[in-house]
């Protein structure tokens, strides 16, 4: 029998039982769409999390924790392939308050070798890098964070009286003039019993770039490491009050993991955010597998419909099958015709399910942030690129394989039953 005729034969039978086949295809579609949409949530959340991590420039950094790292160690690391720079980041663990006239801000501090820092950071938002121990770079929001008593009270009042759904406009507060060129006074205060305080003046020479995220506020102070002796003169240096870590800057993200592995093998205590991403990806792999498993149950339930439809088809057509066998149709052909019918149901159901899933996915990605925003009163969901559902081609392939495979398996037993029909018994059946 020609393949074209086999198709025509199957089509003719499907046309004869349009409603029954339609309902079975519908069940297969719903089952498969459920699987795809469910798993797409796993893919969506994973993408959102990965995007969050990748958006941060930290992906090309390797943290190196070793207070006793020697110059040889650092040189060895610097000589590795793909290492752009090894930046020593020193932090003084004291309360740091910066003030300008009647304004002040409680802030954080970092000390760098400015040559290395410039090599890594590139161009600043404004100004230049410090050239001596009395110059400083400030964070993008530093000026905005410099508040006086009057403004603090005004902000407190504004925060108390803010209407639902509205936000306090912080940009109108803080130092409004050009911060570059201003001389600020910075006080380092020991929280301990001794309560030593060091107050020094620094000239603001630059402003760092805007942070990656809208919600981040950067009011930090970045000093040249030339200023460190000044601090160490006042405070006794211990691991608790002045600590250093090294950040290895790698040229490209794909070179991070191999380098990380190599450094670990060499016995260094290193860490990269990409390691976390690997763990996240592993978690999501298991999570998605779980979702696909749950979705497969829905497909299996829909397969009962296919099994019923095909069993009914075989039972109803017993006499026809008997006639076909009598005039020379081989059992293999009969089996193939029935398998083609169940495959048709599976394929059509899957195609419709894929289309339906993409439509649902688009609707979910548009409406969910709005619903969540309305429910929580937070605009995080609409402002950030929050993806709830993603359907990659791999998911379509997995779902199609499961759905069509299950349809074929459901149709296999009825098809086998058809081949076993006894010609003599079948021909005895009444019309």
């Amino acid at each position, binding site marked *: *029998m*020609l393949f*074209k*005729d086999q198709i025509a*034969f199957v089509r*003719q039978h499907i046309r*004869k039982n349009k409603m029954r086949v339609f309902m079975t295809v519908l069940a297969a579609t719903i089952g498969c769409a459920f699987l795809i949409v469910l798993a797409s949530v796993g893919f969506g959340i994973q993408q959102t999390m990965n995007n969050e991590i990748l958006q941060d420039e930290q992906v090309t950094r390797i943290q190196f924790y070793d207070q006793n790292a020697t110059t040889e160690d650092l040189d060895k690391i610097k000589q590795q392939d793909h290492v752009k720079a090894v930046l020593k980041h020193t932090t003084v663990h004291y309360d740091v308050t910066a003030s300008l006239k009647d304004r002040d801000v409680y802030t954080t501090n970092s000390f760098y070798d400015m040559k290395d820092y410039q090599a890594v950071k590139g161009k600043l938002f404004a100004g230049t890098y410090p050239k001596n121990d009395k110059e400083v770079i400030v964070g993008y929001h530093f000026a905005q964070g410099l508040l006086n008593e009057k403004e603090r009270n005004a902000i407190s009042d504004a925060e108390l009286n803010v209407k639902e759904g509205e936000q306090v406009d912080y940009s109108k507060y803080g130092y409004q003039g050009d911060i570059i060129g201003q001389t600020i006074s910075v006080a380092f205060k020991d929280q301990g019993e001794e309560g030593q305080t060091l107050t020094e003046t620094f000239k603001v020479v630059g402003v760092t770039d805007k942070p990656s995220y809208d919600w981040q506020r950067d009011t930090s102070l970045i000093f040249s490491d030339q200023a460190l002796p000044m601090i160490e003169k006042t405070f006794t240096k211990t691991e608790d009050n002045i600590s250093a870590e090294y950040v290895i800057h790698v040229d490209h993200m794909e070179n991070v993991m191999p380098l990380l592995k190599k450094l670990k093998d060499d016995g260094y205590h290193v860490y990269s955010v990409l390691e976390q991403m690997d763990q996240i990806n592993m978690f999501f792999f298991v999570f998605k597998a779980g979702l696909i498993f749950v979705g497969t149950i829905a497909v299996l339930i829909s397969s009962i419909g296919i099994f019923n439809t095909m069993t009914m088809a075989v039972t109803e057509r017993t*006499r*026809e099958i*008997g*006639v*076909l*066998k*009598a*005039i*020379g*149709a*081989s*059992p*293999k*052909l009969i089996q193939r015709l029935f398998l083609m019918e169940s495959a048709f149901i599976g394929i059509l159901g899957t195609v419709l399910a894929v289309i339906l899933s993409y439509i649902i996915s688009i609707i979910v990605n548009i409406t969910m942030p709005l619903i969540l925003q309305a429910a929580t009163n937070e605009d995080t969901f609409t402002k950030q690129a929050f993806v709830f559902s993603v359907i990659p081609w791999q998911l379509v392939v997995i779902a199609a394989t499961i759905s069509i495979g299950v349809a074929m398996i459901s149709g296999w037993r009825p098809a086998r039953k058809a081949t076993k029909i*006894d*010609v*003599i018994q079948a*021909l005895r059946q009444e*019309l």
Partner: protein
Amino acid sequence: MIEIKHVSHTFKIGKKDNEQEIPVLTDVALHVHKGEVVAIVGKSGSGKSTLLQTIAGFLHADVGSIQINGQETMHFTEEQHAAFRLDNFGFVFQNFQLMPGLTAFENIELPLILQGVPSNERKQRVQKLMEQIGLTEVAKHYPNELSGGQQQRVSIGRSLITNPPIILADEPTGSLDSETEQEILALIKDLNEALGITFIIITHDDEVANVAHRRFRMHDGILKEEA
């Protein structure tokens, strides 16, 4: 053409521990020549239809030998039987056994579809045959729109379309009135004379058996030729 030797078959009835064996064919021997019309007559339950089913391969006899066109078919697999039937046999049944969802034309076309004959050739061959057996006017009719005689003509058309050397007819006129019966018997006779097709006709009706060149009688599974 058909050489049947020592074919015996028993039906087993009842539960396994209390099984009874009923012989339906006992040492059957039959030789049918090419172009011959052979009638096998007998009462209901005598085993005549069982013999036809054994020849067709619907039933596997317990022992014996069946040679058709020089080929031993007793040990054929189901697949081999199906292929052999498609090329060597045409079937005419008492209750026509037409596909209700197919038109007269499509019913006749069916064996050609199974043979994998291309559509254009099929159409030509079916059209030509329908003209020969007088079915052109009902080509587009479904079986339930046809009379008994027309349905049996369609059934005969279906059995002839692949040009088989042998046609097995099981009570071909059993469901027809006497006038239509005569029409069908005349058609069988014409086809035999014109095309040299071998017919094995199973019937309980002596009148039907009259179209045959030779007549055999089946009685309790034993086949004997009548003078």
